[in-house]
């Protein structure tokens, strides 16, 4: 009880800070210097119709590389944690069947979901969406598969290879930017093309594809690892 009271008191104080922030907040009328630069220069310099994508992949590409790495790390550590001191569970618990509807539904939906995922990341520089979103969509397909058959085994090696290779290529493309263009992760060593075309914005579609694959693979690994805990 005392603990809750203390928690409330503390949060009241923190809430005070937040309130001040909210009350002091005034939306900008004009884009600030940074945002204006992006709005003005993206089309010409990067060739990406989606400003957010230009920022995510190029201007703040290093963040994104880090972000991918966060997922990579999380997946790796998840594996490590779950593998820690694991007893070899041979006899797996029999699960009740999930039902016809889900099984059949997944057969229909999974390919579509995958396709949608690919579409989302390939068009990341044109439309809302991108590698992360696409990867997440792909992973949701995997989730569906896992729901259908919790004991399903994926080709771990394959997924891992996809994940790693995507990562390696991502870094390699970044380096090509460094060697061939203006700097690390500069997308312009490939032609910028016409604004709005699928093959435009230099290396962005490639990068987003790699990210999409990587994120998809990582989420899949995580999901499959976590689903293994069902065996407990």
């Amino acid at each position, binding site marked *: 009880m005392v603990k809750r009271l203390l928690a409330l008191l503390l949060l009241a104080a923190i809430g005070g800070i937040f309130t001040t922030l*909210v009350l002091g907040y005034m939306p900008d009328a004009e884009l600030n210097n940074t945002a204006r630069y992006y709005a003005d220069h993206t089309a010409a310099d990067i060739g990406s119709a*989606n400003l957010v994508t230009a920022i995510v992949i190029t201007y703040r590409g290093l963040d994104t590389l880090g972000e991918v790495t*966060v997922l990579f790390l*999380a997946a790796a550590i998840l594996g490590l944690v779950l593998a820690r001191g694991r007893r070899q569970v041979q006899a797996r618990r029999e699960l009740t069947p999930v039902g016809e509807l889900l099984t059949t539904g997944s057969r229909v939906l999974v390919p579509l979901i995958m396709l949608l995922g690919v579409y989302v990341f390939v068009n990341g520089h044109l439309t809302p969406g991108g590698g992360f979103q696409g990867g997440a969509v792909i992973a949701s397909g995997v989730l569906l598969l896992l729901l259908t058959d919790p004991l399903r085994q994926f080709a771990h090696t394959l997924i891992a290879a996809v994940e790693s290779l995507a990562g390696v290529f991502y870094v390699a493309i970044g380096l090509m930017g460094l060697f061939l263009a203006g700097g690390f992760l500069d997308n312009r060593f490939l032609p910028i093309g016409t604004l709005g075309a699928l093959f435009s914005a230099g290396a962005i579609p490639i990068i987003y594809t790699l990210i999409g694959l990587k994120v998809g693979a990582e989420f899949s690994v995580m999901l499959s690892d976590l689903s293994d805990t069902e065996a407990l």
Partner: protein
Amino acid sequence: MMIHLAMATGFLLILIGFYGALSNRNLLRMIVAFTIADSGVNLVIVAIGYMPGRTAPILDATVKAGDAAARVIDPVPQALVLTAIVIGVGVTALMLAYAYKLYEKKRSLDIAKFTELRG
């Protein structure tokens, strides 16, 4: 005004999440509480970039490259929130795994049971 409301909601979510994390001793509930707080953070971030009367930062037929600066909202928070979300997911997954492992060890999800390290 809308924007203040959104922002306030975000902060409220954060506080709710924090309260949940502070008052629940169950590991899983704590994790859920943190995801609530994370959503709050994301909401706040997005709200910060919002500018009334403008459109999404994508160039297309309606938003030409030339007048983009006057028509679109600030794209930066949108880019950042992406990163924030992803990181949140990573951490949440990790916490889940830890919680699982801790449960495996002690058959308990009570945080107060894991106090061998102290002082």
